[in-house]
């Protein structure tokens, strides 16, 4: 990072955050870690809908088609020139390698040409950092429940960028299970919001789906058994010529997913004694999960924090937020930064 200009003071730090890890091309400009100057997202959801899920090659092509436009819009809305930026933060993993590479290549070129440092951001860390956009004075340690289409993690945060993964899914991610069940129920993609919508009119006690808790004390998750149970229930009914109430199925399944997420989170609270919990990731927008966790934590003198729904799904603001804290730590990436599709939290 030889010639990049790095400010001596941390006042008025402007960071452009870029996110292309899955099916959203997104960019945002963030000032001083909390002042969002712009927030642009170009979603590919409608393009992937007809395939029933994200197609990697199509996602990569769409990212390239929209990347430049999204970044330029973010700069225009922020009323800034590239020369006003202090760093470029970009998601380099985990995610789809072809998609990540569009953002990484573009971000590097922008940083190099603007003469500012490049910051490589872990997508999972970015989801967690979405919370700091709205709760900048959150104290450590805290726990984070990260739930999305690709991930289900319980994480202990000892400080900024100091993580310990306490538990993770052993098979499907919670969002992935929601997607699959939604597809089978004919609710469409993406599954989380669709299941939530259908569940609103259903009875959550209509079906009793298994809640896999794994061995005692484990903070890992497993959603595949629960997902299979829903599919089996459907198949059995179909063979008997019965039609089942979709809202009841959706509500019961959603309840089962939320029950497991809540129980495991409370177990983590119990094991660590940490009572501040952050919710992060696309599934963090789920209303039932939010209200249940909020209530349960309150009963234990704890508190739940979560970002507004538009900051739960993939976006550039959360990348800029993570980038801001890396900037403060002067943790910059070399020009050789590559996409790491299987990047972990360490």
């Amino acid at each position, binding site marked *: 990072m030889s010639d990049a200009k790095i400010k001596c003071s941390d006042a008025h730090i402007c960071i452009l955050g870029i996110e292309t890890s899955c099916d959203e091309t997104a960019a945002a400009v963030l000032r001083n870690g909390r002042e969002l100057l712009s927030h642009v997202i170009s979603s590919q959801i409608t393009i992937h809908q007809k*395939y029933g899920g994200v197609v990697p090659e199509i996602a990569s092509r769409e990212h390239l088609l929209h990347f*430049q436009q999204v970044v330029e819009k973010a700069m225009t809305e922020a009323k800034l020139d590239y020369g006003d930026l202090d760093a470029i933060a970009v998601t380099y993993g985990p995610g789809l390698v072809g998609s990540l590479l569009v953002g990484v290549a*573009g*971000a*590097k*070129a922008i940083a190099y040409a603007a003469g500012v440092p490049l910051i490589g951001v872990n997508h999972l860390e970015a989801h967690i950092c979405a919370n700091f956009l709205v709760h900048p004075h959150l104290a450590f340690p805290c726990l984070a429940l990260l739930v999305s289409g690709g991930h289900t993690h319980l994480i202990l945060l000892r400080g900024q960028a100091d993580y310990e993964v306490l538990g993770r899914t052993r098979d499907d991610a919670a969002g992935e299970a929601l997607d699959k069940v939604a597809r089978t129920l004919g609710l469409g993609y993406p599954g989380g919001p669709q299941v939530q919508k259908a569940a609103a009119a259903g009875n959550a006690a209509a079906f009793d789906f298994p809640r896999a808790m794994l061995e005692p004390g484990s903070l890992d998750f497993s959603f595949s058994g629960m997902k299979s149970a829903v599919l089996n229930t459907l198949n059995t009914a179909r063979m008997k010529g019965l039609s089942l109430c979709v809202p009841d199925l959706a509500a019961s399944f959603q309840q089962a997913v939320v029950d497991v997420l809540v129980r495991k989170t409370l177990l983590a609270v119990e094991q660590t004694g940490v009572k501040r919990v952050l919710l992060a990731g696309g599934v963090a927008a789920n209303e039932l999960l939010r209200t249940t966790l909020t209530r349960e934590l309150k009963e234990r003198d704890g508190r739940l924090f979560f970002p507004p729904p538009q900051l739960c799904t993939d976006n550039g603001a959360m990348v800029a937020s993570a980038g801001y804290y890396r900037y403060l730590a002067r943790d910059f990436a070399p*020009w050789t930064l590559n996409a790491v599709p299987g990047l972990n939290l360490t």
Partner: protein
Amino acid sequence: MKYLAIDTTTKVSGLALAEDGRLVGEGFLHTAKTHSERLIPLLDQLLRAAGWGLRDLNFIGVVRGPGSFTGIRIGIASAQGLAAVLKLPLLGVLSLDALAWAGWGRKEEIVPILDARKNEWYAARYRWLADGRLRALSPPRAVSPAVLVRELKGMDGPFVFVGDAVEKYRDFVCRELGEQAILLPDYLGLPRGAFAAQALWRKWRENPRTRGEWVSGEGEERVAPYYIRLSEAEVNWARKHGGGGDG
């Protein structure tokens, strides 16, 4: 007019700095590393060695395909990023057009072949005219080696083969076309920044605005990737639902 040429459409990272079509500096990397890891460091070294700054550039050119899908995207995304910050025009050329410059001035037909995987090549045919112009004899396409070689057998050779598929298919082409085939070695026939720089300079002089390849610094139009092929999912979807796919 000073400009930068970028070609990452094959396993080679090719860069060139040029002025009015004259090659000033060139970077060529054919290593195991990825474009993502090599590109900016190579550009940085090249600029330093040439004593040029990014602010000296008047435009940026990129090879926009066909070739590796990922490579095409890395090249274009990088070129766009540089052009946006520097507020420079961006220009695109095709990989096969650029490769034709490897056979500049030859009397034979030039046949660039790029590895398209799935036992296919991206290929086209060119001829250098006596007045120094390059004529495309066939449009770029994805074609099986057997089909292209069969077509060439029915035409007058010889043919000069260039491109990253030459090494892998050397024996096959020699066997099929015998003395009709001239296969240039890697050091003469792999994609290079220098070839892209020549193709770009010609395009620049031929009034790029009218060729639909131009992008202003403000960017109303973009340099479009040229994949030739649809994605697998689109092909399958079109097959299942009838019709020729919707793009």
